[in-house]
């Protein structure tokens, strides 16, 4: 008996639950084709960053304005170009072209943290043919006066603003650091999210002790990181019928299986593909299929959420007791 690997995500029927997350691999047409050939069910396009859009436009304006009409001998210093591509145009063009080259759904990705004019770019991504949009909200509060409520409102407002301008399904990717992730999830869903992507692996800065400079650094995920989304998907699944995507730490088929059991509709992966190559996707899918087969599941749908917090034999394992248990076992 063959296992039905299909799953539903953001209203789309996907061939299997393995999706490639937003990463530079997806930014190359050739690699994207290979990703499809390896069996990935969908791909999230690289993120368009709010700061980058704003910064690029400002930089361009500053460049022209600061060098224009300064001296009698030089009205300006740069030729007017026929067009100024602020990054958005090539991004959209890439989505359009990729859509023609591959048949798997392509999910657009916007990364930002403030409502503003840039949100309108979501519409352009939709028009370029993205099947859905992933809104990656990454906000680092630094002001002690800004409360948790303020931060949550920021998220909700942003989701509502994007929801306003697009009609394609909208997934919201967030980090794990909320006082109440379930409550936050509800607010996001109420604001218009059709799905949640759990979790953002925050780019954590590093220090260069030679130059005393802050250096951005993003290490590949490790399998240990899987357990944060695993827990929260298991907790959220019974409360929400929106799509849940698991991301972070998915390196092996076992990881895919675990997340499906916890309740994920899809799992996304990137780091593993850097380590093992794009063909690793096939192993993830086949490994998952093999496990389901071996264990006698007939479909992904059947296994999905079977180990969620309410379906698991020991729900407390997802809660604080889990912590106690771990300590007891280690000591």
């Amino acid at each position: 008996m063959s296992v039905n690997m299909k799953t539903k995500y953001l209203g789309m029927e996907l061939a299997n639950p393995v999706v490639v997350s937003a990463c530079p691999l997806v930014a190359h047409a050739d690699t994207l084709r290979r990703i499809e050939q390896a069996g990935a069910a969908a791909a999230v396009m690289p993120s368009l960053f709010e700061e980058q859009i704003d910064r690029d436009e400002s930089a361009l304006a500053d460049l022209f304005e600061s060098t224009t009409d300064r001296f009698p001998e030089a009205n300006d210093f740069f030729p007017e170009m026929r067009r100024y591509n602020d990054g958005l145009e090539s991004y959209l063009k890439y989505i359009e072209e990729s859509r023609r080259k591959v048949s798997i759904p392509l999910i657009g990705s916007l990364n930002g943290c403030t409502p503003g004019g840039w949100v309108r770019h979501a519409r352009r991504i939709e028009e370029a043919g993205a099947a859905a949009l992933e809104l990656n909200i990454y906000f680092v509060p630094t002001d002690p006066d800004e409360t948790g409520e303020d931060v949550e409102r920021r998220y909700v407002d942003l989701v509502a603003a994007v929801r306003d301008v697009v009609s394609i399904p909208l997934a919201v990717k967030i980090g794990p650091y909320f006082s109440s992730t379930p409550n936050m999830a509800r607010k996001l869903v109420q604001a218009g999210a059709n799905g949640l992507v759990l979790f953002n692996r925050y780019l954590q800065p590093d220090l260069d002790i030679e130059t005393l400079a802050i250096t951005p650094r993003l290490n590949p995920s490790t399998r240990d990181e899987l357990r944060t989304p695993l827990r929260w998907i298991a907790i959220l699944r019974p409360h929400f019928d929106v799509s849940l995507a698991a991301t972070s730490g998915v390196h092996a088929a076992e990881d895919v299986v675990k997340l499906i059991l916890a309740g994920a509709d899809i799992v996304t992966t990137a780091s593993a593909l850097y380590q093992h190559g794009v063909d690793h996707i096939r192993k993830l899918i086949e490994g998952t299929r093999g496990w389901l087969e071996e264990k006698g599941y007939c479909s992904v749908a059947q296994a999905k959420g079977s180990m969620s917090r309410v379906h698991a034999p020991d729900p407390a394992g997802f809660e604080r007791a889990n912590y106690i248990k771990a300590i007891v076992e280690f000591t």
Partner: protein
Amino acid sequence: MERRLTTVDGNEAAARPAHRVNEVIAIYPITPASPMGELADALSAAGVENIFGVVPEVIEMQSEGGAAGAVHGALQAGALATTFTASQGLLLMIPNMFKIAGELTSTVFHIAARTVATHALSIFGDHSDVMAARSTGWGMLFAATVQEAHDFSLIAQAIALESRVPFLHVMDGFRTSHEINKIEQLSDDDLRYMIDDKLVRAHRDRALSPDRPILRGSAQNPDVFFQAREAINPIYQAVPGVVLKTMDRFAERVGRRYGLFDYIGAADAERVIVLMGSGAGAVEEAVETLVGRGEKVGLIKVRLYRPFDARAFVAALPPSVRAIAALDRTKEPGSVGEPLYLDVVASIADHWEERIGESHSKPLPRVIGGRYGLSSKEFTPAMAHAIFDELGRDRPKRRFTIGIIDDVSGTSLKWDPAFHDEPADVLRAVFYGLGSDGTVGANKNSVKIVGENTPLYAQGYFVYDSKKSGSTTISHLRFGPRPIKSTYLIQKANFIACHQFTFIDRIDVLELAEPGAIFLLNCRRGPEEVWDELPREMQERIIEKRLRFYVVDGYKVAEDAGLGSRINTVMQTCFFALSGVIPLDHAIDSIKKSIEKTYGKRGESIIRKNFAAVDSALASLHEVKVPDRATSTRRRRSAVVGATTDFVERVTSMMLAGKGDLLPVSALPVDGAFETGTSKYEKRSIAAEIPVWDPDICIACGLCALVCPHTAIRAKAYAPAALAGAPAGFRSIAWDDKAFHDYRLTIQVAPDDCTGCGVCVDVCPARSKEIAKHKAINMQAVTDELVELERPSFAFFLDIPEIDRTEVKTDTVKGSQLLEPLFEYSGACAGCGETPYLSLLSRLFGDRTVIANATGCSSIYGGNLPTTPWAKNAEGRGPAWSNSLFEDNAEFGLGMRLALDHQQAYARRLTAEVAGIAGGDLVASILEAEQETEADIAEQRRRVSALKEKLAGCEEAAAKALLNVADALVRKSVWIVGGDGWAYDIGFGGLDHVLASGRDVNILVLDTEVYSNTGGQASKATPRGAVAKFAAEGKAIGKKDLGMIAVDYGSVYTAQVAIGANPLQTIRAFHEAESYRGVSLIIAYSHCIAHGIDMSTSMTHQKEATQSGYWPLFRYDPRLAGEGKHPFHLDSREPTIPFQAFAAKEARFAMLMRSDPERAARLLELAQKDINERMHFYTQMAGIERSAPERMAPSGRHVLEIES
């Protein structure tokens, strides 16, 4: 037929038709004509076709001579071809122009007429350039307005095609080329109508073709040359008829009628002014006023100046005329009179009787000749009035000047500025802004808004000061119901805006305000507080002139909108709101449309921010209730500061105060020689932030002083005793050295000279252990408290004695920075990449250096009045500096070397002769002195001084002669300085010759990789993949390897340096180059605003340029050749970062990555290959052994320094 009304400047007006009716366009940048070439290039790059349906070929050449040659060739091969130029550029075209005219070839060159350099360079307008081309045989058609520049661009082409005589189409540089005015744009059909296809075909039929071969350009002999020259006479005689016919044809179609000479004024005029060019506008206004008063005056505008139709000219005069003033915008010293005057005199002599027919009793009218408007000197209706008055006198001056006060030769006429009032229905608005605050751009935009969206006419003209950093701009805008022909600056303004609050302390911004005018001040203070912040003079002006005074906090509005310091749209909105020139709603709507048009391509966020600024501007605009008396105790600051010289007091200070026009002739030197070291008197205080030294952290490395582009941060080491009397807050640290024990060291900023660029902070390596961002140098906002601390400290610092330079290790960063700089406070851009090299040069060798400086940025910040940065030390020694031309600088410097060598040879001979007077030992020691080190030089100076003392008073001829040249016995250093435009392009032929000369000259190429001074046009130093003007799609070919060309000679010391990447290597290269007694070439990486970088981190860019292998550092020293050593030393390691990582941080490359990623990727790939290949080549070079060519003095000549 409805034609589009547009507001453009003269350059655009002329270039658009020129691009459309030509096929080949060869260009080269030169002020003020560069924008014509740039526009032609941009149009072709955008695929705009000519009227023949093909995109014209536009090519940038290496010089104007090259452009003329290319055009000549294109014409000979049958193309319609043109170019655009001015001044020295036109002079370089003259040899080709003789040929083109001699061959009767149809073409038009479009000229923005500019002063030819004489006692000084001037970028401004007069007719000295075109007048120098009179003998070439070209026709000359003079446009007087922007509309005429547009019309004549086409008319001249039609005339040239029909007459076969090539034409110069001339407009006045700046006054017309840069004036924005509302014009009617010719349609494509107009262009096609005026360009006769038959004539185009005839032009092509005359071309060289192997299918019907001919030979042109023969060499002729005495038997036939003369006759052949005379054979063209009928052609030239026919030209005026062709011109008239063409102008009539134009009038029939377009409606604007022109003549060879257009007369305006009373039909029975007795006094007539004759002139050509933009001055006609001012005279016309005077004539209208005077005729309105019943005076019999008139004006002849000369349109066709060559061939000069004398009969037609006389026919254009009213027969009643009794006195004529011919005005020339040029000077020909030694001539009987200037060109137009002579033409008028001859024409009257030849044709007057014919003109008056029967009434032979009328005497010949008296003709007087006057000069006006040299170098864009203002020429106003009041001046024209004074000329008419002069014509009315019984004995007028036969030769006069107008517009200046000539107290030497008495040529000048007095004029009454009060003579002329502009009509009350013309809004005359004057705006004071900073070069970087967008004031000029906003005003250009306002002229367009009014000109193109309303029935009103509009004019804009913009005046800049001579600085490249913190420059002041003054915009003159007129709006009125009739076409605006006022070709002079606004004399009385009914609207004045000051966009920068700091100006009120140094500029009399209300001088031009007429009673009751509106005054808008951009100010952080509100309407209640601002009054007390004004200097007393301003308060008095406001009260006395009953001004309506408004303030707006444009800074805050712009900041809130996310626009930073760009206050342009805020101020523009306030202008429209206050002036009422058009209804406010309409204005705001137009501003927004224009914002969308201007910024649309650059991104939505920019549009949004500007919209926000417009929307919130008016809420911050407030009227100030003006008190009835002045209360301020603060006075406007004096233009010069500190103890000055007599010249600075009398002359420089007037220029600095903006009163240079009032200086009489006697105030100026007769030969262009000025005292040096005057920049120190001009305290501009333009920095919003200045660096502040923290001695507790400082490691005394000297980097901050080394990289300071304005020599505004300095290091000094001194004995502790010098600290006596130090002001409170003066800082120092202990400093020890082998030669200087227990010394103190101070790093001091010049608070009023710093531009706030921040480069010193970027390079400072010392950080606080507690607060990592705190360095030994930190930018701090300029406050009264800070200035009160730093000003006296800097004054005290300057008075501390200089260190004994003979004991300093000058080959280290720290040591070099302890030497006194003799190049300071230049007006270069904040963060300039060129000036640190010059500052270093001045420190190391300045007291014995002669500098030949090519035209370009370095000649402008190095030699543009009012004040100049080359300075002298306490002994009165310092760099002697001169600028000859753009193209000849290497030869110019070589000439200096030859002279110095010759003088030295002469002095040595005389020294040997005076042994009996001076003593054999002294003479021998002088003649044998090695003069290699600072100590050697100092010793030789002492010897020469002793020699001079012994010779003083001697009557012997040899002694007298030696006293005159004895200083030549001290070794002099010749530096040939210029940019890449000079070294790689226009001056390369001469540079190459000097490289081959073997003489002891040092060539410093400040390589910004573009023509920086004229606005960033590509040169052969521009790298592959960079976007520049004339390379809008990214330069496809790589940079010329000038260094390797020099190395190829074998005998040329060659170094490629980047002061920010490896300061020690730079210093070493300067020393090695100077000490080498042959030709030395240093190619110095000079970042520039044209690179599109954050200038405060420019030195980091230099590092990355080197780390990526993009700018490898090397030194080739012929002294190491033949000794078994390797003369080529590669100072750069293997690249550690890819080229792309460097390129992505510079807009010149990054622009293309965004606008055309595929092309950019390909170019970057090729650029990376270039780098790999070059590094591979250089690495091999570093391993080669080589003998330098042996040098030998020319036969029979004295072997000078070469032998050493």
